[in-house]
């Protein structure tokens, strides 16, 4: 069987540095063949890669759910790319600056053919360190884009003071403590840090806090959050203290505004009952899917030797079997929700009730 082609979704507010990043991908000699789907067709000098221009066409599904939307143009474009004779190493989808990342992500979970041939690898969000606080004030999209991210490029770090940079990073962490953050200038980043990361980033939910089974809820996430080793980093602007983060990343934070995005982590100390989980999670996504932007988890399932890897965008879920558990390894289940108006206690209690008897 041929491997599904990894898809990277590239989002970011206008002017954040998306185009600069795309140009890097297209011009760097990486020896890979990528197809890049952009919003507008421009004549770009490309040797090896394929550039496809499309108009974002957001289609509602007829199931009556207003958040079940897909990108019709992507379904067609990917169908066309799959006919080509040359094997692709990856597909990169650029969204417009004001775009809600949900329809593009949902496309990879809902369309049968797209699902069969490709796999959503990561949502990469480029954030302008200088203007992000302003964007948060005047648009919901900027916040959503960070909420959806698996990887955040905190860009234009040279344009802000160390203190402001630390503040922006804290704000990103409040919205989405699970994204991997890379600080960049002019979108300069090694491509292997943003492309073809998928399974790795989902497994990371568990790895994020190796102690979570004993230490419910606290996220010692800072040393995963940077792309450098904090032990050797002497930049005083980087926040390497454990304690500091606890105030911000608690499971039930007090958002500044009633509709701020925050996250909830729910853990079960052991395997879950698959049927109980299925019933519970579909009920949660059905009733609260509009407020849950993303949910993802790595679960131990009773009777299964592999990790169960779950992710959803709003109401639309997808799951696969991941790495097998090692002999003697402690099996735990963790699920995270990123969204608005989440009832942290109810989510945690609901997940706990899925624990295998």
């Amino acid at each position, binding site marked *: 069987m041929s491997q599904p082609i990894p898809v990277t979704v590239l989002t970011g507010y206008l002017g954040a540095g998306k185009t600069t990043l795309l140009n890097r991908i297209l011009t760097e000699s990486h020896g890979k063949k990528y197809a890049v789907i952009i919003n507008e067709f421009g004549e770009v000098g490309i040797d090896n890669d394929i550039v*496809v221009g499309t108009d974002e066409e957001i*289609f509602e*599904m*007829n*199931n009556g759910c207003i958040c079940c939307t*897909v990108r019709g143009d992507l379904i067609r474009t990917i169908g*066309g790319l799959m*006919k*080509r*004779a040359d094997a692709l190493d990856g597909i990169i989808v650029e969204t417009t600056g004001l775009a809600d990342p949900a329809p593009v992500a949902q496309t990879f979970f809902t369309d049968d053919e797209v699902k069969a041939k490709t796999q959503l690898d990561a949502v990469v969000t480029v954030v302008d360190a200088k203007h992000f606080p302003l964007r948060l004030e005047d648009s919901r999209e900027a916040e959503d884009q960070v909420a959806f991210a698996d990887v955040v490029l905190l860009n234009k770090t040279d344009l802000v003071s160390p203190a402001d940079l630390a503040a922006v990073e804290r704000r990103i962490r409040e919205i989405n403590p699970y994204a991997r953050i890379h600080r960049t200038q002019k979108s300069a980043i090694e491509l292997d840090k943003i492309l073809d990361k998928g399974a790795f980033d989902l497994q990371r939910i568990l790895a994020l806090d190796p102690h979570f089974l004993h230490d419910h809820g606290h996220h010692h996430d800072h040393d995963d959050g940077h792309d450098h080793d904090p032990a050797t980093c002497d930049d005083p602007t980087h926040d390497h203290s454990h304690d500091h983060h606890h105030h911000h990343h608690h499971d039930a934070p007090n958002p500044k505004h009633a509709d701020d995005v925050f996250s909830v982590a729910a853990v079960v100390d052991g395997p879950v009952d698959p049927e109980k989980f299925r019933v519970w999670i579909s009920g949660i996504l059905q009733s609260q899917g509009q407020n849950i932007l993303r949910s993802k988890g790595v679960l131990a399932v009773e009777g299964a030797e592999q990790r169960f890897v779950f992710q959803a965008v709003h109401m639309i879920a997808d799951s696969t079997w991941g790495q097998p558990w090692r002999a003697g390894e402690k099996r735990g289940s963790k699920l995270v929700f990123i969204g608005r108006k989440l009832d942290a206690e109810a989510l945690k209690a609901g997940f706990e009730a899925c624990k295998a008897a």
Partner: protein
Amino acid sequence: MSEAKLPARREFAFGAYVSGAAFTADGETAGFALGSGAIKLVTVADSSVREIAAHKGASLSFAAHPDGNSFLSGGDDGRLVRVARDGETSEVAKFQGKWLDVLATHKSGGFACAFGKEIRYWAPGATEPKTLGPHPSSVAALDFSPDGSRLAAAHYGGASIWQIRNPASAPRKLDWKGSHIVVRYAPNGKFLATTTQDNAIHVWRLANGQDMQMAGYRTKVKALAWTADARYLLSDAADCFVCWDFSGKGPEGQPPVEYGFGDGRAMTAAIAHPDSPFVCGGFENGALRLGDMDSKRDLELRPGADDRKPIRAMAWSPDGWRIAAGAEDGYATVFDLKAKS
């Protein structure tokens, strides 16, 4: 149909995704369009193959040219190319930066392609196209009415029917929510069928605009074929022939005719015989089945296998005696239903 002997067949390994198949008017040449951008011309009599490099990327749309002696191919290089049976190739048009994945032809000589929200229509004998549109969203499929007077376009929110002799007039709008991806006129011109992203078929009775919805598919329907008598509408996407009966009061409230359950794999391509009540389906495991709508019996032309790839393109020759089929992995075949192997 005798089940004792299978029709004679020729098989080819073309090495790239077979995205289209068609016959010349006399059925003597089969054309296969490939994801490599090549067109393979197969002379059925001696199985000789000629390869034409038509596109830089992939051929995304392919049809018999109305002149009867050539084919039209649209590519992701923006080129619409005419390839004659002798291999002579000419560029009909080039639309820089566009993907030509939608194409329709009519025996009267007209043909049309679409990219983005617009259609380009060539009247019989015309060298320059007329523009129809823009539509509210990208055009996903086109089909000419049987008499060639109208052109139907499927798009988000329904279908638009253009009177092509009067392109300035507003199209008739057939509205139904959702993204419509296939469109097919019934051979009697009385119905227009589309398929939608939500795994359903939608059909309009054109006389009064009444519409009906046919659902129950587990995946989206990507191929529709009407039998020549316009009685049955065959769809792919199920693991058998699913045929909606439009005789009498029509399919509303009636289950479809279902037969030819094979090995539980989904149909990925479907065609109907040009004059008789026969249908043919290609499956995701490479199987090919011929169906008889009168007896509701089927004949396996090619068995499926787990290591075989989905059939993606099929065509019936205009005289009804030959079938061409091609798969994702470059497998292609031409059956001669007259000759027994």
